[in-house]
Every structure is written in structure tokens, then in C-alpha cells.
């Protein structure tokens, strides 16, 4: 690793001939940066791959990295950034790992006063900057995907449709109701009505802490849609404060059956089906 080498060769050749010590130093720098949260073996494996993908790109100034020659690099960075997100690293750490290579390579050529080498260094610096920014982009993408997955899971989790009697379904709603959730609830409930051939559905809103005009509107829509399909909906579990809000807002529930508790609603549904529940007589 002498400065003399820089005169005769270009940066790409220089890096190729000095690959091993460069990677070694790079791993050292990054291991110090991450303070032992990533093992040297892992880093070395990742960086070796990087280095191999990076070598053909040296000489590029990184101004346009959408070209085909960047395909490998992009997918590599994509994978790397995603792995880092899941492992809980900050985007700064991910990008800094990449930037660390800059210092290592500059050390290689620092004693050179050849303007050619300087130009190549500047270009290389630009290239790494662009790649570093790319990791940010991938980081944000990965984050967005995780958030989207989670909110979808949450949506599924919080809206179960349960069968509580032959021909009676119940939907216990918990949390806040918004348009998206009500849409899911509505679809799931209606699908379940068809699948099970149930004629009664109970929407229990004990776990809903706020009802405004919009939520009420959504509830009414669900009830009307179920009615169109030939099923009867009962709304149960309206809490005292919510009852007051509903009246204060002037929301009309019309001819929709509302009951204080799920038990009352079930009893109502059974009575409509001419089912009697009686306590068995002790013999």
C-alpha cells in the first residue's frame, strides 16, 4: 500500500490489488462503529460481496445510479438495508458503514499528488454518497412495508366474526372505528352471514370508546347492508356516555334494534327464532 502505486494505476486497479487489506480495514472501522452489535464474520461476508459488486462501478461518479450496471448493487443494498432494519440498526449506522469505505480508500492514496488520482477519488466519493443515500431509500421502504404489514395484521386481529349460536353471529368491536375498519368489519360480517347462513348478527360496541356521527353512519350502513341480504342486525353494548353522545348529536338509529348488553341481544335474537332457553329442573 504505497502512494507510488497510485501514479501508474487507476483507482479501480489499485483497489483490486489491495482488496484484502482494504476489506480488513473497512471491517475494523465498521466494527468499531457498530460497537460489537455485528460480528466481524458477518461484516466481512457482507463487505466482501459489496466490494466485489463495487469494483466494476469504480470510476462512475454516482450521478445516475438507475442504469443497468447498478442492478446487482441495488439488489445487494436493498437486501442489506432490509436486514439492517429488521436487526434494529439506525439508517445512519447503515449508511455510515458504507461511508467508512471512503476513508479507507483515501488512506490508500493520501500521499499521491497526481491530479488524476484526485479526480478519481472525487468520483468515488460521489459514488459512495449515492449508494449511501440509496440505503436510506431502501431503509424507508422496508420500514413502510413493516408498518403496512402490521396495520393489516392489526385490522385482521381486531375484527373477528364469531358464531355464538346456531344462526347468530357476533362482532365484538374494540378500539376506534374508522372508515377503513368499518369497511373490513362490514365485508367480513356480510361474508360470514352468507357462509354460515345466519339470520342474526350482533354488533357489540362495548369496546368502542367514542362514537361520532361518522362512526354511527358506518354502523347504520352495515346494518342496512345486512338487512338487504336478509339478515337482522342488533347493536349492543352501548355505554352510558356513548348513549348520551348519540342523543346529543341527534343520531337516529331508526328501527334498528339496540340492546344494553350482548346477552340481551342474544336473547332477542333467539326469541325471534322462537328458541327458548330454560334452566334445567333439578331432579
Amino acid at each position, binding site marked *: 500500500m504505497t502512494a507510488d502505486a497510485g501514479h501508474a494505476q487507476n483507482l479501480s486497479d489499485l483497489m483490486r490489488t489491495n482488496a484484502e487489506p482494504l476489506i480488513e480495514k473497512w471491517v475494523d472501522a465498521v466494527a468499531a462503529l457498530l460497537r460489537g452489535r455485528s460480528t466481524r464474520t458477518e461484516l466481512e461476508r457482507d463487505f466482501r460481496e459489496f466490494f466485489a459488486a463495487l469494483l466494476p462501478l469504480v470510476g462512475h461518479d454516482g450521478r445516475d445510479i438507475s442504469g443497468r450496471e447498478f442492478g446487482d448493487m441495488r439488489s445487494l443494498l436493498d437486501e442489506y438495508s432490509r436486514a439492517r432494519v429488521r436487526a434494529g440498526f439506525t439508517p445512519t449506522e447503515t449508511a455510515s458503514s458504507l461511508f467508512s469505505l471512503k476513508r479507507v480508500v483515501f488512506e490508500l492514496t493520501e500521499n499521491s499528488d497526481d491530479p488524476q488520482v484526485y479526480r478519481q477519488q472525487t468520483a468515488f466519493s460521489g459514488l459512495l454518497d449515492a449508494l449511501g443515500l440509496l440505503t436510506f431509500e431502501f431503509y424507508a421502504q422496508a420500514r413502510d412495508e413493516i408498518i403496512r404489514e402490521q396495520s393489516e395484521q392489526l385490522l385482521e386481529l381486531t375484527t373477528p366474526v364469531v358464531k355464538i349460536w346456531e344462526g347468530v353471529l357476533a362482532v365484538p368491536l374494540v378500539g376506534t372505528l374508522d372508515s377503513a375498519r368499518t369497511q373490513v368489519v*362490514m*365485508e367480513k360480517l*356480510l*361474508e360470514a*352471514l*352468507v357462509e354460515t*347462513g*345466519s*339470520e342474526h348478527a350482533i354488533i357489540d360496541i362495548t369496546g368502542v370508546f367514542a362514537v361520532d356521527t361518522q362512526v354511527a353512519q358506518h354502523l347504520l*350502513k352495515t346494518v*342496512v*347492508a*345486512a*338487512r*338487504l*341480504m*336478509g*339478515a337482522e342486525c342488533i347493536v349492543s353494548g352501548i355505554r352510558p356516555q356513548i348513549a348520551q353522545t348519540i342523543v346529543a348529536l341527534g343520531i337516529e338509529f331508526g328501527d334498528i334494534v339496540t340492546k344494553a348488553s350482548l346477552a340481551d341481544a342474544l336473547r332477542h335474537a333467539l326469541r325471534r327464532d322462537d328458541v327458548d332457553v330454560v334452566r334445567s329442573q333439578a331432579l
Partner: protein
Amino acid sequence: MERVPILKIGGVLLVSIQIDLQDQSVLALQEDLAEKICATGAHGVVIDISAVEIVDSFIGRMFATIASISRLFDADTVVVGMRPAVAITLVELGLTLGGVRTALDLERGMKILGQLGRGRDF
């Protein structure tokens, strides 16, 4: 133009819609049905729409119109087998089909008409 067949089962007329409804077919169906109810003296009409996947406001209004026509002949109308997506669409269109009875499937629809018609048979 395709015509929707109207079948007679006892005192009930069964309209099973198996095609994509065009406005022309809908108008023809209303005419045919009015004539058929008048001719047979049916006490009930069942419209089976379990095969209908797409509705617009015109078709939505058809149900209400048919129900009103039937009522003039003293016959009850039950719409059966509406799919969830169709129900949601109708609600979003603001068509709540007040005055039209609905049932989950044909069997339940016939039962409802049976209960309603029981009072009439001597």
C-alpha cells in the same frame, strides 16, 4: 336482448336472474312480471339474485319498482341471495330498499312467503 324467465311454483312466481342485466332486460322483466302476476293471481314473488355480481342504481331501483307493482296485485316480494358486495354497493348508492323483504337464500324466502300467504288460503 335476453329475457329473464319467470317460473310459477304454487302461488309463488320465481324470478331467477342468471344473466348480466341490461336496462332493456330489466324493463322487459317488469312488464312480463306484471302480466304474469295478473294472469296467475300469484300471492308472492321471489327474485333470486345470487348470481348477480354487478348492480347499478337502475337495477337497484328495479327491486323497489317490482315490489310496488306486485303490491298493486296484492302479492309480496322477497329478494333473496344478495351478495355482500352487491349489498354494500346498494347501501353506498343510498338505496335501502325500504318495503322490500329480503332473505339469505331461496329456501328462507319461500318460507317467508309461506308464512305471509298462510293467512290468505282458505
